[in-house]
């Protein structure tokens, strides 16, 4: 598990990319969901 997080020293760059990407897509989905529920 630690190896997967560390990724030979590249963990910050790789996970920094993936976490921000999926967080942004999740924010877009939540915002859209709120918009669809608005009357």
């Amino acid at each position, binding site marked *: 598990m630690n190896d997967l997080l560390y*990724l*030979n*020293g*590249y*963990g910050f*760059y*790789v996970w*920094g*990319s*993936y976490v*921000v*990407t999926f967080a*942004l*897509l999740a924010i*877009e*989905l939540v915002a*859209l969901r709120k*918009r*669809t529920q608005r009357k």
Partner: protein
Amino acid sequence: MTTQTNTRTAGIRWFWFSSPATFYPLAGTIAWIAGVLAAVLTVAGLYVGFVVAPTDATQGEAYRIIYIHVAAAWMSMFLYVVMAFWSAVGLAMNARLAFILARAIAPTGALFTFIALWTGSLWGKPTWGTWWVWDARLTSELILLFLYFGYLALQASIDERRRADRAGALLAVVGVVNVPIIYYSVQWWNTLHQGASVSLTKAPSMAKVMLLGMLLMALAFWMYSIAVVMIRARCEIRESQ
């Protein structure tokens, strides 16, 4: 007479769907299918990218950013072209649904452009030694982000819907010239950014399994974009009534 009628109804009546009211339920169905496909393809792409694909010989583990970086960069350009297409259709035919689709694409296009720049920056630091350089590829991609922002700002700042749509559409159509500049920038100028690993004219210059992971993620982002754009288009239709 019967045969003639059958032939006429057998084809898809495209213009029938150009009415927002008839497009609304269709968009809901498309969003569901694309959403499910996006989820399945994302899981498959991440599995291939992180479990099946080996470590890169030259870039080590840092290369794994490729699976989202390239997919996001492709989507940023593709969505802009589609947005410009619907804008042009809207301008030419004064079609309300075309403007709605262009409006629905812009936020997701801007999001993918930001993701491409963000992940590129995080890839650039360990491989180039810098977060950012003002080279042709990076600068033209940044201009694309500003074009999306400009379109969104125009839409937000003009109260009258039709005027906002036409002004935004004009910007989208003029700005499409930037897309081939981004794509060919690595050939036209001497840049720090590497050339295309995948192109239509030659064999890909990367391992097959890595290519598979990248294509799966590109398809996943494509399906995600379709789903989100359809949901947003439904919101726009509902709010405009």
